[in-house]
């Protein structure tokens, strides 16, 4: 085992650091809250800069136009961009981390040529049409129907939790093409152009006040048969392939961001009066913050272990579920301490009085953390995965 970097890794890091130092001051101002057109422009602008500098598709194979970086290099990329305060992947999340790699692995040469270069350049934004109102944790029960009509499918149904749908050009869609097949075998993965007639997108507001997600109503949307990726009725497998690209790096930016939040909470504790001293002088508060920071450090070690596993075996196993369960619990408790420290300053979601020297919005972050035990597999589903796949416990049925 080693933490030291190889000469190649060191070179990768220092080149990236130099590029970030030169590039970040040239970025435009971040988009205003809830201005999704501006957000799209900002995020795709960043993707374009990454592309021009050779960092787009960092983990994609070189044959599809990616950088072909090792999992360790990807970790370094995420670490350096986060520490430098670079923009997040944002609107380019589905295209660069889900749909793109899936098309790379399962698409035809024509599909790759058509979809992948614009993704890497940041020309196109994608959204994901998987979840439905009646198919959440039980995704395989999805009902959106795709009926063949000549060289098209006619698709009708309802999707939900579609991130960035309001500014997306394409959607990676799961639809049921064979209602009579066993539920995992009648699903097809297809590309839906978001300007097709019959699509209605209704943004949903989450409890943080943002509307990143949408409901998407599909009413006889015509999708060319050539847009199917993989074989008809093989979409469940294709969708699972997407998860196979996970290399243990999914939460790196999140985790490093949480370390920054924690450091900020320590600062706030040090300047928050309590009795004759400060909140940091309170053994209980100091202990809580200390244990939380130890947990974040340990979760960073776990991340490195998952990435090492991915580098060695191709995937990190159930490391993602283990990480999510540990991390969401840490964040929940961080939120509790944050609200206690802020006192009446918790009445504002952001930080109107400048308590946070780093301008961090701890109250909004505390609310956001509620999603960490829900999104991309609830904590309960993750515990089933850990219990059944890692410990080998029997299924409930």
């Amino acid at each position, binding site marked *: 085992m080693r933490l030291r970097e190889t000469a190649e890794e060191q070179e990768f890091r220092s080149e990236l650091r130099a590029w970030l130092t030169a590039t970040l001051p040239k970025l435009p101002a971040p988009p205003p809250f809830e201005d999704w057109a501006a957000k799209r422009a900002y995020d795709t602008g960043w993707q374009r800069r990454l592309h021009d500098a050779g960092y787009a598709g960092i983990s994609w194979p070189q044959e599809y136009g990616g950088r072909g970086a090792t999992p360790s290099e990807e970790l370094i990329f995420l670490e350096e961009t986060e520490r430098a305060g670079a923009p997040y992947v944002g609107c380019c999340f589905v295209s660069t981390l889900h749909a793109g790699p899936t098309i790379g692995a399962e698409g035809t040469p024509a599909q790759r040529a058509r979809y992948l270069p614009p993704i890497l350049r940041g020309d196109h934004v994608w959204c994901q049409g998987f979840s439905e109102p009646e198919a959440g944790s039980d995704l395989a029960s999805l009902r959106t129907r795709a009926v063949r009509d000549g060289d098209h499918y006619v698709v009708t149904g309802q999707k939900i939790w579609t991130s960035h749908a309001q500014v997306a050009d394409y959607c990676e869609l799961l639809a049921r093409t064979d209602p009579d097949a066993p539920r995992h075998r009648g699903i097809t993965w297809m590309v839906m152009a978001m300007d097709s007639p019959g699509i209605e997108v209704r943004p949903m507001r989450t409890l943080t006040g943002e509307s990143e997600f949408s409901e998407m109503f599909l009413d006889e949307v015509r999708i060319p048969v050539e847009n199917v990726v993989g074989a008809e009725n093989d979409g469940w497998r294709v969708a699972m392939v997407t998860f196979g690209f996970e290399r243990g790096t999914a939460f790196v930016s999140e985790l490093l961001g949480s370390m920054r939040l924690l450091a900020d909470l320590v600062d706030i504790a040090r300047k928050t009066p309590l009795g004759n001293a400060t909140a940091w002088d309170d053994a209980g508060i100091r202990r809580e*913050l200390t244990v939380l920071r130890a947990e974040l450090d340990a979760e960073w070690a776990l991340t490195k*272990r998952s990435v090492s596993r991915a580098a060695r075996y191709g995937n990190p196993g159930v490391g993602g579920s283990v990480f999510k369960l*540990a991390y969401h619990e840490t964040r929940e408790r961080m939120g509790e301490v944050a609200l206690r420290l802020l006192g009446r300053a918790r009445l504002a979601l952001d930080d109107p009085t400048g308590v946070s020297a780093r301008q961090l919005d701890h109250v909004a972050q505390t609310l956001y953390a509620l999603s960490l035990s829900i999104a991309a597999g609830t904590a309960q589903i993750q515990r089933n995965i850990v*219990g059944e796949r890692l410990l080998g416990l029997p299924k409930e049925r």
Partner: protein
Amino acid sequence: MDLEPTDDQAALTAELARFLADRVTPEVRRSATDQPGAVDRDLWQALGELGTFGLVVPEDRGGVGLGMVEATLVFEELGRAAVPGPLVGTFLAAGLDLAVSPRAAAGEAVVGLVPAGQPAFVEHRAGLDALLVVASEGVTLAGPPDEAACRPVARPLDPLTPVDVVDALPDGEPVGGPDLAGRLGRDAALLAAALQVGLAGGALAMATDYAQGRVQFGRPIGSFQALKHLLADAQVAVEVARAAVAAAGVEIDEDGDAGRAVDAARIVASRAAERATRTCIQVHGGIGFTWELDAHLFLKRALVLDVGVGSAEEAIASFAASL
């Protein structure tokens, strides 16, 4: 960067795990509870021959010449089998340059480890050849305290860790100052954390096994989510702690930011061990609360390990000071 054990490291732990599965059975553990004070000398010597105590001793001094990473892997296995005895003290003594060191490395001498203070709680006194006493200002090596100066504890917390209360520890030979005290505190903390990860893993394996086989309401109880989720949460804590312990071992071997990494590992391993060993008792239900089942031995050892040299509380204080 590679935080996954190498093939050699995996082989090292597999060999020790095979030995321990054969040698430290539940029957052996149970019989040890009937002979308080004794240290199983045959086992100690066998562990010495396997290189357990001389693992980080350089090869030119007769050791194995490996690093703290390997030591954490080995101590995790020792924890998983809840091996009784002053493992950490003997390991640390073997790594020093003392008259007793070669015999400690060979498993021929049993060396205890205790934080200075009055009264002192000395573990395994009757089985000791020597005792390392660690104070913040330095380390001394003493012979085992005189029986006359000791009050044996009739009901030790861990039946496998006999304890004597000693009002005044014997004056020993000074073997090092604050630097050595700091290093031994750090290494002892990491080894205790590794033992705790092992104890936690051993307890969870026991609980998982039981949950798979025990049938109630016509099904294995491990199929019920209430228990499955309890076990999954404990497993998560163990995985996180194991990674933190590995990272801390690497930091020591690479001369990195070891103090901070060890503190973090110590903090999360202590919590993981308590969580997993409690969970083991809960999953077993009534039988988990009995003396007969080994579940309590895992919990109790985990609690003992929290308060040795380089305690979990000290780790919290020193980690807080680094924030």
